[in-house]
């Protein structure tokens, strides 16, 4: 693997909630165009790590670099401006607003002091077409859509400003089988467009279907990562269950050890 600058790098991240230590000295690297699977048991700290990355939580220690430059996001809005988009498990959409308004939530195009409705709906339509989503109309209220379509709207919102990084938190948890398949296709397409993605999931088969690398967290610590092409679900499960920090190997070390 040629040494590239990671587009996102987190070093030595720690975070406590009262007496509970949610993350202890965690590292993470994400390279451009890569799909990284983030796995681990419940309460392993996956979501907390991502919330620290997007600025929803503030870290106690450690640093975050985006394209090699240290950053300090105080809220999700700042990380969005820096090109990090997150798709939340419950999609975080406003049910009372329509598809177009949701895609541009918080970033409505303006003309003077007014919202430029024509531009908003036209661009929303373009994004949805690009995703090949069958949402009837950009004027439809989001709460009347099915779960899969709501997800499509959430993805459309995430990619509408062509960000370099997209983070997906349990994207398949609320989806039907066909909707899951379509989502995985979308992820591969995004990858081809050079978008780096982090996917948090309990379903290893999803990660093995599209991912390049898997990273395992356990009780707030790194316990290893592997290239998807050099490992199998069995090994990952073994790391999830019985991995420790001491025995942790990163993907390249594991590759050398195997040789």
């Amino acid at each position, binding site marked *: 693997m040629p040494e590239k600058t990671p587009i996102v790098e987190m070093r030595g991240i720690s975070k406590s*909630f*009262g007496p509970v230590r949610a993350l202890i000295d965690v590292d993470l690297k994400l390279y451009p165009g890569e799909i990284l699977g983030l796995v681990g048991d419940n309460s392993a700290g996956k979501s907390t790590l991502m919330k620290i990355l997007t600025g*929803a939580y503030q870290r106690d220690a450690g640093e975050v670099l985006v394209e090699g430059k240290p950053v300090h996001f105080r*809220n*999700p*809005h700042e990380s*969005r*401006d820096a090109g990090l988009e*997150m798709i*939340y498990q419950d*999609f*975080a*959409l*406003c*049910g*009372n*607003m329509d598809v177009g*308004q949701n895609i541009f*939530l*918080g*970033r*409505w195009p*303006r003309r003077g*002091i*007014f*919202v430029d409705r024509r531009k908003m709906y036209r661009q929303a339509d373009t994004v949805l077409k690009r995703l090949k989503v069958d949402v*009837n*109309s950009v*004027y*439809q*209220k989001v*709460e*009347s859509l099915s779960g899969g379509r709501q997800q499509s709207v959430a993805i459309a919102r995430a990619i509408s400003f062509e960000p370099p990084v997209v983070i997906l938190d349990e994207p398949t948890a609320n989806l039907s089988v066909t909707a899951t398949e379509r989502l995985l296709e979308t992820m591969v397409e995004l990858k081809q467009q050079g978008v780096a993605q982090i996917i948090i999931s309990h379903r290893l088969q999803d990660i093995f279907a599209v991912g390049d690398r898997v990273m395992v967290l356990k009780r707030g610590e790194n316990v290893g990562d592997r290239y998807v092409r050099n490992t199998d679900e069995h090994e990952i499960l073994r790391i999830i269950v019985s991995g420790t920090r001491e025995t942790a190997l990163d993907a390249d070390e594991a590759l050398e050890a195997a040789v």
Partner: protein
Amino acid sequence: MSAPLTRRLPLELIGGWEGGLFAFMVLLYLAGVYINPGFFGTTDAFAAVMRDAARFGVMAVGMTFVIVNKDLDLSVGSTLGLVATVFSIVFAETHIGAGLGAALFFAILAGLMIGLINGVLVTMLQVPSFIATLTMLFIGRGLVLGITGGKTISFAGKARDHEWFFAIGERGALGFNNQILLLIVVALVGMILLGKTRWGYETYATGGNEMAAGYAGISTRRARMRAYLLSAFCATLAGLMMIAQDKGMTSQYGQGNELIVIASVIVGGASILGGRGRVVGSVLGAALVVLIDKVLREGVPTTRIVRIGEVEMQVQAMAQLPPGAVPAFLGMIMLMAVLIEPWVIRRKLLQRAWARLRGRPVPRPVEIGGIAIVGTQTRGTVAADRALKGGLVRRFFARRDAAALILAVVLWLVGLWLRPDFWASIDNTFNLMLAFTEVGLLSIGLTFVIANADIDLSVGAVLAMSGAVAAFMMRNMGVDPWLAVLMALSAGALAGCINALMTVRFGLPAFVATLAMFYMARGIGAWIVAGRQLSGFPEVFNLIGRKLIEALRHFGLTPAPDSLLFTLSAALSVQTLFVACLAVAAGIVLGYTPIGQKVLATGGNRRAADYAGINTARVRFTSLVFSGLCAAMAGVIYIAFFRSFNPAAGQLRELDAIAAVIIGGGSIFGGYGSVLGSLAGAAVIALIRALLSLQIITAEGRSFVMPQHWVNVFVGLILIIAVLSDIWLRQQDLFGRLRRRVRKRLGLARKDAHA
């Protein structure tokens, strides 16, 4: 095995809070004795405090169940009043004059009916508890005034025949008033019910986490229903105690009691967020709040030296807090009590301060994750999607404000049909417009607040306070009218700021914060003007409430008679013009700018809006301040129009304004609302009020006018109907579901026929 027993019990378990309350109460009583030994020093005073506390204690026992359930019952004061009214009407010889048994039966029935209605509205029909019980408060009050006609009823003579019942209000064998014994019995039963039985455990589970309790097989609906019935029953009991003591009643019975009762329960250690609270605490809280109330109302004997010419005279007087000060303080106490739990106890504020003082390591506060109080999110509006297909008519009917627009037109036509001689005249139209501007102005501000999924119950009170500020400044301080207007607007904005601070910064539910403001602002308003009516403002100021033509004339700009401008300015008033301008501006902001989109997004899903980078705290803050500002403008217009300030200004207006917004397409759960709709809603309310107070001339040539109290009852009913139809017709699409079901059944029948 003895280890667990020797461990020191945590302070909470052995009643640290209750102990503290008791100590505070003793100190307060001593303060009362110090201020006025002539009253508080006697045993009579002690007995009087205990006697009055008994009634509030009984109500607090019932309220504890409701608050632990994470609900609220604002109707207890009205329930007390209504029970007393029904009893008096049935019992008194001046009215029906039936026996004691019948009187008791109907009184208790009336009380329990209110509990039942509250329970059904809140549990089965899913109306938010504060809006359901607030409406019952106003309806109950309207009924009391309507039935008694605002008069006093007395039956001291007849009471002598039924000594066993009226003995409740008398001094008993042990030297205490029997009401205190009754309180002890009720408190004991309440303690056992809440602390030891299944009912109590179900209540705590429901308040702690309703969903989890539901999954665990607890019928949370039944638990909440039960609490409302218990609360109403306790209020009924308190009403009977009051009747037994006074052997008569006034229409003021129970007014404002809900404030004292809720404050008692919260002071007694219950959490407004549910799941916490004890009967002992509530009873002690009631005693404490009643004591505070008494101390505040107590006069301090003072001696003043007055010089009349050469003679110096000593004048004995009682220095007393002006009327209105007491509710203002009580509202403040309630707010502080509500804030104690999340901000002092959970954050370990005292322990941290203590540790810092001693130089010890400061314990970390427990991090409260995210938003403290999450409101109900907006639910499905399938109806709106039908608007995508179909023509103009269909699209119009799918608008959320369609009903309000149609209703406004229909109601106006009804008025024309009832009184063709008078309805369309310039005079009546002018009056309608005036009534409309007040409600309209309040509802413009409220539209933003309600679209944000908050509520502002204080608009009517803030109207009164700002009016009082302007009136006082001009009349007593001789301030320039424009400066006075500025100060009144500042007062309204300040009230809005406090509301916003409490809801946004301190995370209180908006209805609690603004309910406290409801009492505080009205109290302060009455305080400023010392309960009097103020009038005699500069005529320039009064122009705000005049016709446009008068304003033009005043500035020497009289248009030529018979010109279009002349007719127009004769029919329009300054305030109508002002409200129209404000409405257009607010409507454009809400409907077409990013600010409006932010408001709707915040109300629709606050978390999503937060993640999308919308500063939801600022959006909600601004809306609440804007609402306060609108109320202040309404207050200024009010006193300019009437040329005087009356402390009862804006009473019940919060009801009108909320109803206007909901009728006009707003949702009580947030995320919806338009200024045009709210104005149409305000028109509906103004028209209904005008229609109900219309003089109807019957065929026999007699005329009939409905008294104002009954009109208020109707407006309360309309609010409830509006909220219900919003929840069930707009959100749940009840008609659509019925239609689909019918269609399905028809389809099945057809299939059967084919087969």
